[in-house]
């Protein structure tokens, strides 16, 4: 049994020749990850809402990429691999800055709900149905608007929303990371989704000609 395992290991080692990516020189790797830097910084800042923290997360990511190039198996896309590392580094930053981030909370109460709904609980404006953009160019423009709308979410509400929708954490995990109650997380997610809906209605779906 043990023998079989060793054979297996040896075969495995032999069977994974250097892919094109692992053969890349460090300089080439550096060039590739450097080209991704604007995207990484944009994503990190969207989640962290603080340029200095975002830059820290991106630097940590670049370092990890250069040190751990052997971890890239060439099967997944390079960008997917790098963004995966970024997500871990961004989460590290969130843990590190958790105390400071708490002071960012804005408390706008139920203001938006009061604007959307009449006192009797009906919608003031009848909701439309939304069609998502079909072609690639429109889709890219839509994503720009979507990112701008997410960016416009206030401090901690934006962080919680991005933890849910970008880091794909469930609400339990978000509670633990930020040390807040689940009711608190649900309230923030509710506000984030209401705001996002309003923003998209105003800046994308409500505009007749695109």
């Amino acid at each position, binding site marked *: 049994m043990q023998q079989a395992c060793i054979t297996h290991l040896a075969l495995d080692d032999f069977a994974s020749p250097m892919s094109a990516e692992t053969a890349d020189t460090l300089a080439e790797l550096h060039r590739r990850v450097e080209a991704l830097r604007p995207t990484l910084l944009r994503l990190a800042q969207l989640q962290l809402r603080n340029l200095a923290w975002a830059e820290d997360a991106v630097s940590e990511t670049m370092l990890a990429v250069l040190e751990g190039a052997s971890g890239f198996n060439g099967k997944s896309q390079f960008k997917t691999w790098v963004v995966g590392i970024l997500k871990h580094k961004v989460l590290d930053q969130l843990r590190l800055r958790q105390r400071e981030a708490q002071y960012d909370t804005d408390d706008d109460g139920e203001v938006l709900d009061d604007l959307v709904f009449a006192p009797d609980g009906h919608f003031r404006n009848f909701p439309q149905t939304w069609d998502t953009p079909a072609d690639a160019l429109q889709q890219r423009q839509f994503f720009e608007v979507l990112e701008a709308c997410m960016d416009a979410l206030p401090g901690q509400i934006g962080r919680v929303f991005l933890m849910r929708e970008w880091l794909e954490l469930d609400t339990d995990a978000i509670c633990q990371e930020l040390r807040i109650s689940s009711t608190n997380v649900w309230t923030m997610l*509710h506000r984030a989704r209401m705001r996002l809906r309003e923003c998209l209605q105003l800046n994308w779906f409500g505009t007749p000609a695109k």
Partner: protein
Amino acid sequence: MNYPLRRTCREVAALILAREDRALAFPERLAIRIHFLVCKACPNFAQEVRTLRHALGRWRHYSEHDNDPSQS
């Protein structure tokens, strides 16, 4: 008219948003279904929320993949 599980649009919209992040209890799901029978606005709202969910999924994919042919 008043009936059990009656909810306003504001309350139903809150449930529609909540189910993006947590599993709803049976009475909550039932309240949505009953409300949808008498309301045309909330099903539209639910459609918007669904569209938003799909859009966010595609955005995640877009932000993590080299789907731009000019860059690959």
